């Protein structure tokens, strides 16, 4: 039997929470923590090595070997409601809507540049299918956040987010 990814993901996030006694059911404006991608790196890490900025030598090696090693994840926002901007790589669909996607910090991740390290990838699920405007659409995602190294069924995705709100990001 295939487990619905949105359920699996939320359960996994919840299972990973150790420090939180209660969880907000819905996001209120004053509860929401705005995060940036740098916040997902362990303290002391420097964001944007060359590979994260797309500055790679395409001739030098297969992309897989260039994926930066994961430097660890932060559990500071486990169970918190956060808002994070990023770009969509759709994974699962319901009809024409996306119900699971990977949020990446820069466009083109995984195409001509190496995938970001695990702590720069967020597996997002939503119970309400999101009618995406297209691949790499910029969005703001709000929802319950947590460390999720096993819940996504894909290795090396450091975080999971159960989205309550997905907004198109107006560039």
């Amino acid at each position, binding site marked *: 039997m295939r487990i619905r990814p949105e359920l699996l993901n939320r359960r996994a996030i919840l299972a990973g929470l150790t420090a939180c006694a209660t969880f907000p059911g819905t996001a209120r404006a004053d509860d929401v923590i705005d995060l940036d*991608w740098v916040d997902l790196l362990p303290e002391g890490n420097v964001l944007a090595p060359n590979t994260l900025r797309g500055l790679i030598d395409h001739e030098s090696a297969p992309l*897989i070997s260039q994926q930066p090693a994961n430097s660890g994840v932060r559990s500071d926002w486990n169970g918190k409601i956060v808002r994070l901007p990023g770009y969509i790589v759709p994974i699962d669909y319901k009809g024409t809507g996306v119900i699971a996607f990977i949020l990446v910090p820069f466009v083109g991740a995984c195409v001509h540049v190496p995938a970001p390290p695990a702590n720069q990838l967020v597996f997002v699920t939503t119970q309400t299918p999101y009618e995406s405007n297209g691949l790499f659409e*910029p969005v703001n995602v709000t929802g319950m956040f947590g460390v999720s190294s096993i819940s996504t069924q894909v290795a090396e995705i450091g975080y999971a987010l159960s989205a309550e709100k997905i907004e198109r990001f107006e560039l």
Partner: protein
Amino acid sequence: MISGFRRIRRSKILTTALTLAWIISAAPSMACGFHTYLPEKTAVDLILGSEHLVIARNSGASRFTYTPIEVLRGTAPAAKIPQLVDVVSRRKLSANPDDGVLFAYDAVQNNWSLVAYLTPEYRTFVKMVMDSGSEWGDGYPPERLKLVEPLQTHPEPALRSLALREIDQAPYALLRTMDLQIPVDTLLVDLWAQNGYAYQPIRILLLGLTDEDTARAELYDFINRMKHWDDAQNLGPISTALVEIDGDDGITRLEQTLLSDSTQPLNKIEAVVEALAIHNEFGSAALRSTIADTMTRLVTLRPDTAPLIARQFGSRQDWSLARTLEPVVQNRMLSNTQDFLEVAVYVAQGRENLK
């Protein structure tokens, strides 16, 4: 905490650039995609791209240095031609007063390039290129191939060689429409000539354009030998030629020999898939259907081939296999994030194109 908005805005330009990069990377299937040598400019490239073209000869007073005797384009640069007249050229120039050597001058780099030794025949060809080349525009137009086609069997080796190098630059879609005049026997002999190695890929592709059993036999032997090799050298052009010459049967042979063998290295599989992706651009509906079925069986047998399928078809903006690859994403059949995302991007792009 820093808002990510600013980063997102900065990324707007990046969005456009990378989207374009994705699209641009879908270059047309070039015959030269299978080069085994570093592609250098041909004489035609130099003639088309040079602001200054001169014909030079040596003289009795300076037998070892070239002096411009005629300006074909631009002006006669003041810079002296540094190339010396080699002994063979000295003899030929001495024996043939109408011959010369064509040089191109790059004023920015202050650099002279020897384009070709000009016989009267070669000179006629140069004039034809100069007359018609200005209308060709970007890319490799059919007119350019038409101009070199008659040189395939020219008595002068330099012009025959130029023809082969020009053909090698043509997009595969154009190549397969050409009037091939090189005899199969010549292709086969030159294929294994010591100085022919660098041009094996184009000669293999040309074998595929024939309908000769001797060409088939060579291609079958190639494939059978390669089954036991670890590297994929020339497997791309061989697979392309095999499908060209045998159609569906060629695909079946590739599947039976390589694709259905789960022990084959992925680099070899990718070379075959590249060939099938090329044919998926031009093939009949029946051939494309066979390719789709073959890819479905391949990815079912080996989900780890999904990224290379996505790569080869995606780089040609061919999203026809999105449905075939979708289960790989849905069922999380790839453990590597890079691979997983590569296939997910292809599937997403395919779905968008279906909208």
